[in-house]
């Protein structure tokens, strides 16, 4: 019993301790209406790997990106929209059902151009509603789907080529077939665990005839092999039941990657591009007898270059002798493959696929490492689609400017700086190039906004760029006399310091430090890697085609971070699995790798995040995918690396590349995974995927802009994605989430001032979304509000209601925006519409009361508006502006009331006029003259003819007051003297009009008894100003 009591208390104690923090909310229960915004850019776009058109509608084309999902154009390539937002963003193959081309689309995930940075798919998807919804139809371990071929006679019969695993063996490779539209799959052809199906093609006239190429290949973190005795091309003439090698005329010996294509207009003609042992027999082969015999026709550079990356031939659907070959620069043959020319200008390099327009073979679409292109002249000149932001960032950094700038490097597309906000939206033209080649890590100098550090692959160059003066100095460290050769990772770590603005770190196998912006370097570590010589044989890498690009450089430092609390503490992670830390600025290093529990040996130490709160605390993430291990590894140490605890839960589904600790709440962590962004609000006890306008794209890096509290994500496929203002996540506690409604504290809203100019992107150009400039009211709802009224009102300090907002009602965090303006004035009714009727005056800075009424309960909070500290206006200027704007606001309405009174009086007076039959009566009641005067006056008050465009009439008082009001209300500062003088003129005119109306009213009151006596219709008193204001008309 005693034992039990002890046990009871110990469990109670344990539960108390852990229960204090655990916040088991998940997904949209937390995030509610928080959302990410995408800023691209699409200027350079990114790797697009697959194109597939609609079989009968030439305006529709689908483009699959290496890491950025599926994009569809409905207009022949002017605009593209993403249609695969909730699913794996790495695309292998796309196919359209020929019988139901508007409805049924297949997407096989997992890019097949197996470069070092390629990611992993998760099976095959099908949409039956034109891409609105997708269902995963299986093949979950296929990793890379190379082909999808649909039997045109029976579209439930689909053949799928699975290339499969890149980093390990897999029995999931081969050719699969379904006969029931994807419900079940049968593996109909398999070679072995290391040879995958790289291409399947189908005879369009006889769907029983299939060709399939198989490729033996393997990548490790430090090598690549293409080719072996198992690579081969096969044919089946019986719908995939039996397969035979068709190598008559092929090179002997080991083969590498083989592409195969069939001429749609003559299925006897086949093309195959072959990687082989000897240079003399590599290249293009052609068969004119459906694969029975082959002849080599061409071995030019573009036909043989990098088969693992470029292995696609596309044949003109109308002419069997016109073929396009994807390659470094792309080439085209018009004579059946005998000779080739380059595909011409306008294309980025590294071409992956083509698509011929079904009606016009001079219109060809192509894709490459820089997006999607279109030619109208048969492949001479190409224009780029400017709206596909599938850029693949490796890293992102931010600065402290306002608006802050974003820095980062891209796969094959250099290094860039762009704004996080821009009037009219962030356009392609707003990005500035700060590096060539492949870009990786880019950092601003912490204090000098004109200095940027950037690099290209393998630290071939590290630059210090002066963006103001347009200078770039190369500053990489060189080995000293007794140093071994430096080994730099493809994605070489460089980083700056919060302690010393001129400091820069750079990692080879050693850690290098410079305190003078890269002019001089000091080696502050020994070789921190395992220095395993067997992993340093890159000159032998590539297999049948040598491929020593630097992409397989290994035994290098990959992660470097200085503690924000102590510059002597530096954490280093290496690609071969070491975690090293120094506590004395590099004099002594501790290899703490062995202290990390349950971490497979040599798992890539991808990122280490020293804590913002405690010197001995750090987070480390490891990426095992290059060892064919896709598990997440996230650890925390609180004792300087002596012990580590995993903070992985079952919520995490893929491998991890980056972690960011909030700088205010140590329990708030952000995780960049291969499958998207994850957030924990309880120190890693529960993780939730952030899905609001955030696809499950690989997040390679996370930066936190502290002033704005913006989380800035380097995605490897969808450009830069920003979650503005993560501060509500800090305020989620057990207590707040238990309440029906809980307001969150907000920083005062800075009232942004701008000219309203900006934004000139053409149709078809991507425009990145801006952060909101509106005030936000943020609250947490325990459950969604569905039944009964829920209102949100804002009051000023006098208790006057200034806004009535449509409530946000989601479970979780709700963000409601207010433009801190009053509703526009009620202007006079005229023939046309006026600017002032669109413009509400900005309310003054100050504290406002927000009141939410939900059912019978009332919740209140304060909302503070603050003038922009960077404003050119003084408080006094603003005061004058507000007074004048409000005066004009009221004048709009007063004039509206003047016109309303005339409009109300006129019908009766006109009626009376007709009843004044004698000259005596006319003299006694001068109503006719009055109506004439009224009409004349009204004509000077409002425009009563013309339209809102070029048929416009001369402006009258309404147009003038409204125009001046619009000018004053839309400028935050003091009105000009001219405007103030004009105000006086308009005020006098308005007063004169008011006086006239009052005089008529008085005159009519005086006449009323006599009129009644004369049995004339009664002139009823007009409605009040308040009634006029409250009315819709």
């Amino acid at each position: 019993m005693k034992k039990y009591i002890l046990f009871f208390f110990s469990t109670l104690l344990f539960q108390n301790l852990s229960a204090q923090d655990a916040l088991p909310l998940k997904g949209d229960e937390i995030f509610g209406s928080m959302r990410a915004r995408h800023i691209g850019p699409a200027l350079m776009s990114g790797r697009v790997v697959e194109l597939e058109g609609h079989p009968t509608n030439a305006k529709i084309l689908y483009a699959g990106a290496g890491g950025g999902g599926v994009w569809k154009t409905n207009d022949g390539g002017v605009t593209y929209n993403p249609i695969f937002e909730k699913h794996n963003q790495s695309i292998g193959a796309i196919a359209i059902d020929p019988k139901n081309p508007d409805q049924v689309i297949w997407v096989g995930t997992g890019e097949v151009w197996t470069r070092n940075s390629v990611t992993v798919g998760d099976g095959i998807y099908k949409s039956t509603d034109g891409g609105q919804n997708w269902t995963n139809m299986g093949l979950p371990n296929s990793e890379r789907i190379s082909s999808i071929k649909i039997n045109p006679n029976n579209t439930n019969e689909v053949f799928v080529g699975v290339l499969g695993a890149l980093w390990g063996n897999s029995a999931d490779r081969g050719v699969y077939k379904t006969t029931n539209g994807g419900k079940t799959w049968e593996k109909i052809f398999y070679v072995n665990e290391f040879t995958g199906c790289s291409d399947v093609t189908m005879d369009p006239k006889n769907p029983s005839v299939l060709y399939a190429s198989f490729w033996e290949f393997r990548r490790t973190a430090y090598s690549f092999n293409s080719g072996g005795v198992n690579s081969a091309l096969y044919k089946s003439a019986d719908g995939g039941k039996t397969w035979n090698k068709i190598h008559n005329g092929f090179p002997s010996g080991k083969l590498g990657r083989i592409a195969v294509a069939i001429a749609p207009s003559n299925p006897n003609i086949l093309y195959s591009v072959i990687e082989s042992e000897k240079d003399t027999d590599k290249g293009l082969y052609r068969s004119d007898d459906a694969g029975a015999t082959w002849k080599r026709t061409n071995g030019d550079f573009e036909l043989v270059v990098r088969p693992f990356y470029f292995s696609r031939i596309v044949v003109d659907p109308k002419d069997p002798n016109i073929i396009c070959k994807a390659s470094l620069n792309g080439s085209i043959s018009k004579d059946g493959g005998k000779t080739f020319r380059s595909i011409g200008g306008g294309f980025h390099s590294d071409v992956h696929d083509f698509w011929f327009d079904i009606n016009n073979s001079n219109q060809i679409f192509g894709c490459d490492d820089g997006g999607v292109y279109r030619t109208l002249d048969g492949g001479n000149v190409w224009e780029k689609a400017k709206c596909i932001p599938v850029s693949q960032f490796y890293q992102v950094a931010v600065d402290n400017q306002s608006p802050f700038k974003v820095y980062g490097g891209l796969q094959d597309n250099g290094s860039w700086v762009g704004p996080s906000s821009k009037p009219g939206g962030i356009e392609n033209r707003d990005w500035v190039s700060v590096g060539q080649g492949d870009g990786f890590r880019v950092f601003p100098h912490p204090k000098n906004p004109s200095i940027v550090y950037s690099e290209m692959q393998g630290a071939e160059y590290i630059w210090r760029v002066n963006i103001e003066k347009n200078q770039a100095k190369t500053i990489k460290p060189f080995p000293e006399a007794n140093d071994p050769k430096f080994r730099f990772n493809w994605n070489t770590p460089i980083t700056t310091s919060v302690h010393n603005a001129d400091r820069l770190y750079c990692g080879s196998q050693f850690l290098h430090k410079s305190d003078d912006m890269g002019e001089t370097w000091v080696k502050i570590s020994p070789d921190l890697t395992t220095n395993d010589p067997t992993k340093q044989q890159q000159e032998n890498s590539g297999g049948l085609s040598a491929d020593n690009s630097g992409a397989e450089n290994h035994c290098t430092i990959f992660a470097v971070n200085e503690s924000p609390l102590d510059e002597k503490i530096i954490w280093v992670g290496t690609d071969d699995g070491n975690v090293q830390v120094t506590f004395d600025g590099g004099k002594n290093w501790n290899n703490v790798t062995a202290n990390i529990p349950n971490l497979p040996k040599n798992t890539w130490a991808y990122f280490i995040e020293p804590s913002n709160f405690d010197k001995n605390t750090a987070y480390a993430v490891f990426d095992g995918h290059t060892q064919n291990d896709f598990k997440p590894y996230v650890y925390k140490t609180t004792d300087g690396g002596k012990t580590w605890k995993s903070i992985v839960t079952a919520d995490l589904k893929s491998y991890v590349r980056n972690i960011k600790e909030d700088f205010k709440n140590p329990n708030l962590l952000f995780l960049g995974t291969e499958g998207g962004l994850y957030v924990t609000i309880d120190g890693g006890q529960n993780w939730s995927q952030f899905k609001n306008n955030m696809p499950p794209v690989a997040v390679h890096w996370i930066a936190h802009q502290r002033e704005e509290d913006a989380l800035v994500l380097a995605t490897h496929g969808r450009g830069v994605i920003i979650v503005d203002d993560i501060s509500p996540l800090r305020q989620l506690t057990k207590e707040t989430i238990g309440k029906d409604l809980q307001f969150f504290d907000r920083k005062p809203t800075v009232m942004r001032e701008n000219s309203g100019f900006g934004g000139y992107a053409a149709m078809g150009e991507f425009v990145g979304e801006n952060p909101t400039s509106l005030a936000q009211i943020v609250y947490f709802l325990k459950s969604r509000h569905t039944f009964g009224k829920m209102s949100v009102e804002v009051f000023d300090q006098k208790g006057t209601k200034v806004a009535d907002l449509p409530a946000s009602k989601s479970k979780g965090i709700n963000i409601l925006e207010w433009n801190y303006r009053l509703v526009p004035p009620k202007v006079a009714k005229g023939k046309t519409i006026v600017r002032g009727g669109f413009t509400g005056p900005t309310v003054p800075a100050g504290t406002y009361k927000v009141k939410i009424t939900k059912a019978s309960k009332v919740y209140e909070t304060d909302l503070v508006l603050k003038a922009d500290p960077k404003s050119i206006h003084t408080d006094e200027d603003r005061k004058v502006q507000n007074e004048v704007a409000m005066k004009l606001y009221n004048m709009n309405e007063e004039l509206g009331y003047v016109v309303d009174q005339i409009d109300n009086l006129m019908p009766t007076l006109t009626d009376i006029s007709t009843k004044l039959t004698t000259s005596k009566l006319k003299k006694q009641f001068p109503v006719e003259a009055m109506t004439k005067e009224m009409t004349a006056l009204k004509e000077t008050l409002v425009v009563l003819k013309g339209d809102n465009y070029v048929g416009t009439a001369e402006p009258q008082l309404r147009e003038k007051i409204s125009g001046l009001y619009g000018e004053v209300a839309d400028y935050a500062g003091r009105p000009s003297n001219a405007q103030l003088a004009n105000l006086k003129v308009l005020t006098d005119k308005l007063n004169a009009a008011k006086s006239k109306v009052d005089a008529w009213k008085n005159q009519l009151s005086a006449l009323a008894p006599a009129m009644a006596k004369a049995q004339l219709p009664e002139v009823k008193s007009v409605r009040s100003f308040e009634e006029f204001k409250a009315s819709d008309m």
Partner: protein
Amino acid sequence: MKKFSQILLLTVLSLVTNLTFAQTADDVINKYFEATGGRAKWAALKDVKATGKLKVPSQGLELPMVMLQKSPNKQKMTMTFQGKEIVQPSFDGNEGWNTNFMTMKPEKMEAEDSEIMKQDTDFPDAFWNFKEKGFSITLEGEESIEGVACHKIKLTKKPVKVDGKEEENFSYYFFDKENSVPVMFRSVGKKGQMKGIAIESFLSDYQEVNGVFLPFTINQKMNGKVMASVVIEKIETNVNVDDKVFAFPQN
């Protein structure tokens, strides 16, 4: 102005038709009609007049509006702006029209758009007698909407012609599993730049009107961003709206 009228058009096109709203494959739909007053009450609805405001918070716009709907497929949305009535749009069962913002005069929709409206306008509800109307519904699993577990129903109407080509006409409705009312419907842009773009209308503030529960607030979002809200203050039923008000004005 152009932007504003685009938003307006968007809002109205996908929203007016669904002022009264629908729910599962047969079970879900039956439950929906039961939970919102019962089929008898729904059957008694001949027309509806909703008065409220169209709000575009990002632009500070707040326009008084009146939405009229009449059996079987007439509708009209009228907004008041600077003392003028702007119709966006009206549909008399055959022909649709809008007020031109430049001239403030009515202009007919392209004939093809009127044909689309014919398909898209249902009273009292898209799911009311859907079988007789030739529509089909399927239950497509569950989805969480604003933190609410929902049944997902695909509603497929008769095909419509878009740019001369026949296309499937479908939308998705999300019915709260617990209380059976739809909390969101997702329609898809059919033409031009909006083609293929999902527009989500979130329904809330359900209140009883003569025995039928109707949503008084519709927040319309694209990519999670609020584009416009319709906040209804009053709904009147069976007010005997004259057919003439829906027709294209002759003068």
